[in-house]
């Protein structure tokens, strides 16, 4: 029987980084957070295939930068999403750095083989790209805080860990970002304006589909 990693906290798993259990412990961390990281990468890139590559990259980067980890409570997720922010910000450069490892994984996007699922994925990708287009008028930091708080569902304090800024900065930045997005929605932007009639928070609440 294997070690019961499932009952260990993220901090306990991370504490194994210096010994022979590091591989299993990081495997458990991957299992625990991969879907949230994947969703976040998708919301930042609007591409499923790039999100798959970036999810791997986030965990490889997390291992490379393991000494810098910051926990929010017991969770490493906010910090991982911060790593994901950096990875998506410099996506091409980051992907190039890990190109050799990524080449050994199954090709991204290969499994969307059921027609309905494939159609849904295409729809989601289109919507994400519309939203990203709309958010193009926002500052980088505003896009990040919206993605973390409104899409990934992090609390202010968790987003603060992810962004490496004080909680108060997250609050004010988020408020400005939402206002800025509403302002943009009022402007003429034919490609994006239909989606922008609703704020990301309302999209989250169930209006987009």
């Amino acid at each position, binding site marked *: 029987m294997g070690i019961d990693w499932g009952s260990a906290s993220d901090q306990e798993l991370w504490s194994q980084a210096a010994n022979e259990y590091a591989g299993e412990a990081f495997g458990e961390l991957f299992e625990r957070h991969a879907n949230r990281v994947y969703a976040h990468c998708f919301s930042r890139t609007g591409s499923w295939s790039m999100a*798959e590559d970036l999810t791997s990259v986030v965990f490889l980067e997390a291992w490379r930068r393991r000494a810098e980890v910051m926990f929010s409570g017991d969770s490493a997720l906010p910090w991982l999403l911060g790593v994901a922010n950096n990875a998506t910000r410099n996506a091409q450069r980051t992907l190039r750095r890990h190109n050799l490892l990524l080449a050994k994984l199954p090709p991204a996007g290969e*499994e969307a083989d059921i027609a309905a699922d494939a159609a849904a994925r295409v729809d989601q990708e289109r919507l994400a790209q519309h939203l990203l287009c709309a958010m193009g008028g926002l500052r980088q930091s505003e896009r990040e805080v919206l993605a973390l708080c409104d899409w990934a569902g992090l609390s202010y304090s968790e987003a603060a860990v992810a962004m490496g800024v004080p909680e108060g900065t997250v609050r004010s930045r988020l408020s400005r970002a939402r206002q800025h997005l509403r302002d943009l929605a009022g402007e003429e932007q034919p490609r994006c304006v239909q989606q922008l009639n609703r704020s990301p928070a309302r999209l989250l609440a169930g209006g987009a589909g």
Partner: protein
Amino acid sequence: MSYFHPQRMPELPARRRKAARQQLEQLVAQSANSRARRHPAVVVAAAAIVVLSTGAATAGVVAYEAVSDRTQARCFAVDNITSHDFTLIAQASKPLTFEVVRNARSTCRALFRIGVLRPGHAPGRPDRKPSHYRVPPLVVCVWSDQTAAVFPGGKGTCARLGLSAAAWRQLGPRRLRPGTAAPIP
């Protein structure tokens, strides 16, 4: 429906997920093992030095010392400083990550709880159900390099091993002279 709520998002495809996890585990294990291979010899040497230089510590006076290096700590499965039955915990460089080592006793307790460490055994795979893992009483001593070393045992264990007991509670090195009595951690 919302497309963006994470709980409603499609999951990372299974095949890709499995391969990515395997790759991560291999990479991490290779990297961690290449560093871990060094420590047994270092431990033997350090242990010999401690035994030779601190024999007087068993004279009945409990000595306390501050743990000044919190970059790592050792969790022992046996109360024997020459044993290799220990595991290293967290090396960190930023303030919040010190908590793992600062709370070395609770981290080690967790390792006993999940079965990584078993009293009297080499760290290894457990053979019983997780709920049956026993956590022994633990005591924090100061290793020769001023890091924390956590052993199964109680009061007097550090002295018997020729080590100082750790004075964790804010008696920093400047305020605490080696060998000075201090609150039990």
